[in-house]
């Protein structure tokens, strides 16, 4: 578990777990995309940049990062759907550069959208029957395995229902059941709880833990939800801008914050027209208040996120070396600026605090 140091490869190496099922070094992927409105101009975009990692057998590795951090691209390279431009290593013992087909045929992938691969003309059971045949599961084993999986994903009582008539969470469990049909030992879950309600997401997390413990399935999952990564993963790598900025257990990552703490303030009446990270503007009304907070003693970073401009509803994240002192100065400053403070949090750091400490941005960005 180490912080990023751009020119030092060793800092991006994970501790080496035994029986490395994934062992890759320096994976890099550059996408070339056409500029909007241009016929020939091509822009290069480094989606994954010099990523090295090892995953041990039976481990759950979390890849945490905001949208656009390179999580999906990394997964696609590891499961053989994209060939890295640079780097080396193996997945299940197969070379990631030259044996993509061999890797593909031995891993399972659940894409972020549950509906992908689910056919609405087939019932829940028929969907599994279809994929069982596609996976080449022998007829004599097919029924038993589908029955087992329907129980495992808690869809037995919905087996004759059309997918369009079950919840998004159930469809996600169906997608995971489909991916488990082949009984591959390595499962990639790309944002498995995205778009699910809290209860649906909780059930997916329980299910992920169960298949990892009971079936010894090695899992690499991506998420931008800090609590999900904390709850599920034995180790976490934090991606930002295609690079690993930190890795380790949740506890190890939290220690990165050290004496620094994050004060999280929810308030209304905050100045709207926040300058975004992509297009900072000194003229934005929020720029004044952010500048004022930055000038407070002990303050290290400030991020203001106003999500309802009409009433100035939003959140202020302040990284400080002295929570008590900063809070004592910050609250009057906000009141003077016309803000109504609705909640303050400054407890133990969580992974979002870690991400904010490392990048100066929240995970939601």
């Amino acid at each position: 578990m180490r912080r990023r140091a751009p020119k030092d490869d060793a800092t991006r190496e994970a501790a080496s777990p035994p029986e490395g099922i994934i062992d890759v070094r320096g994976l890099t992927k550059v996408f070339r995309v056409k500029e909007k409105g241009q016929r020939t101009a091509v822009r290069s975009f480094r989606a994954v940049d010099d990523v090295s990692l090892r995953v041990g057998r039976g481990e759950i590795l979390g890849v945490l990062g905001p949208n656009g951090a390179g999580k999906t691209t990394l997964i696609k390279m590891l499961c053989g759907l994209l060939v890295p431009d640079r780097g080396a290593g193996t997945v299940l013992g197969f070379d990631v550069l030259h044996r993509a087909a061999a890797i593909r045929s031995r891993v399972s992938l659940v894409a972020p959208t549950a509906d992908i691969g689910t056919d609405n003309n087939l019932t829940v059971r028929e969907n599994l029957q279809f994929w069982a045949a596609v996976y080449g599961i022998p007829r004599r084993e097919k029924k038993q395995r589908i029955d087992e999986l329907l129980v495992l994903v808690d869809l037995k009582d919905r087996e004759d229902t059309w997918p369009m008539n079950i919840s998004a969470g159930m469809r996600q469990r169906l997608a995971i059941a489909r991916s488990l049909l082949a009984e591959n030992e390595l499962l990639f879950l790309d944002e498995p709880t995205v778009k699910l309600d809290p209860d649906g997401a909780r059930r997916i997390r329980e299910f992920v833990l169960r298949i990892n413990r009971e079936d010894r399935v090695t899992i690499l999952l991506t998420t931008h939800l800090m609590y999900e990564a904390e709850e599920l993963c034995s180790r976490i790598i934090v991606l930002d801008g295609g690079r690993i900025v930190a890795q380790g257990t949740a506890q190890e990552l939290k220690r990165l914050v050290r004496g620094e703490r994050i004060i999280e303030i929810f308030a209304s009446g905050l100045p709207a027209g926040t300058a975004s990270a992509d297009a900072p503007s000194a003229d934005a009304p929020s720029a004044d208040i952010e500048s004022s907070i930055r000038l407070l003693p002990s303050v290290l970073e400030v991020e203001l996120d106003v999500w309802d401009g009409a009433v100035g509803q939003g959140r202020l994240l302040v990284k400080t070396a002295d929570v008590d002192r900063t809070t004592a100065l910050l609250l009057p400053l906000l009141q003077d600026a016309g803000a109504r403070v609705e909640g303050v949090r400054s407890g133990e750091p969580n992974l979002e605090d870690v991400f904010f400490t490392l990048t100066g941005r929240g995970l939601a960005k």
Partner: protein
Amino acid sequence: MTRHAGAAAGFGALLRGIGSFVWLEYKALLYYPASFFMTVLQSVINMGIWFFLSLFISGYADRYVASFGGSYVAYVVLGVAFHEVARTALKSPFLSIQTAFWEKRLETYRIFPQGFWAYVLGRFLWQLLFALVVQTVVLALIAGLAGLNFHPEANVGLALLTYLLFILSAFGLGLLGASTFFFLEVKRGVEPVGWIVDYAVRLTSGLYYPVTIIPAFIRPLSRAFPHTYAFRAMRLLLLQGAAWQTVAADVITLAVYAAVAIAIGFYLLRWSLARAEAGNGVSAVV
């Protein structure tokens, strides 16, 4: 459940995968049965137009097609029916890939062994069977109502072999055209190879009129397409009752065409997939 057996691979698994996709299409047909009847009706109307048009000019046109045996009506009806099936084979690979791409399923199919090929071949097989059934119904309808003057000693077996080679040739061209999906900006547009073949054969291959009536400088173009050999051989076999020797050159040409087109088509499609995966991926717009 701790077996970690993995997915099956090999030719048997591919065949089971193809069968699964055929079953999937069949289930979709059961879900929307009206579309089957509307497709049959559409084909009957389309063929009806050609039937009445050819009947209208039959008195004038019969002499130009006398060398094939039968009437101009039989000449056109057979040509259109065969062409529709071959057209399905030509278009199927690209349209299947295009459908999976926009439904975001390409990577889902690509991730398991033989998945992509099981999908492309399964959909092709289903669409081919569907087109064959529809065109057979339409031909039977016209033959029953108006008569098509099939030769009583027609070599049906050889005609079927010719038909099969024709379909395989068109499918090979279809695979070749489908490979353009991953390196040209045709994701939502028209596939250029299939489009060129489809329109060029209408003009040059003797679909609606004998090749001999088109200008001499265009005629060499007709030799580039399997349709020319297939239309001639099948009409001679079915309408004139020609012997094997008469159509041998056409049938052998078709066999070579099918083998070469399928080999090149598979190679190019595999290559374009690998190229896409080395670039932005199969699910990315160019």
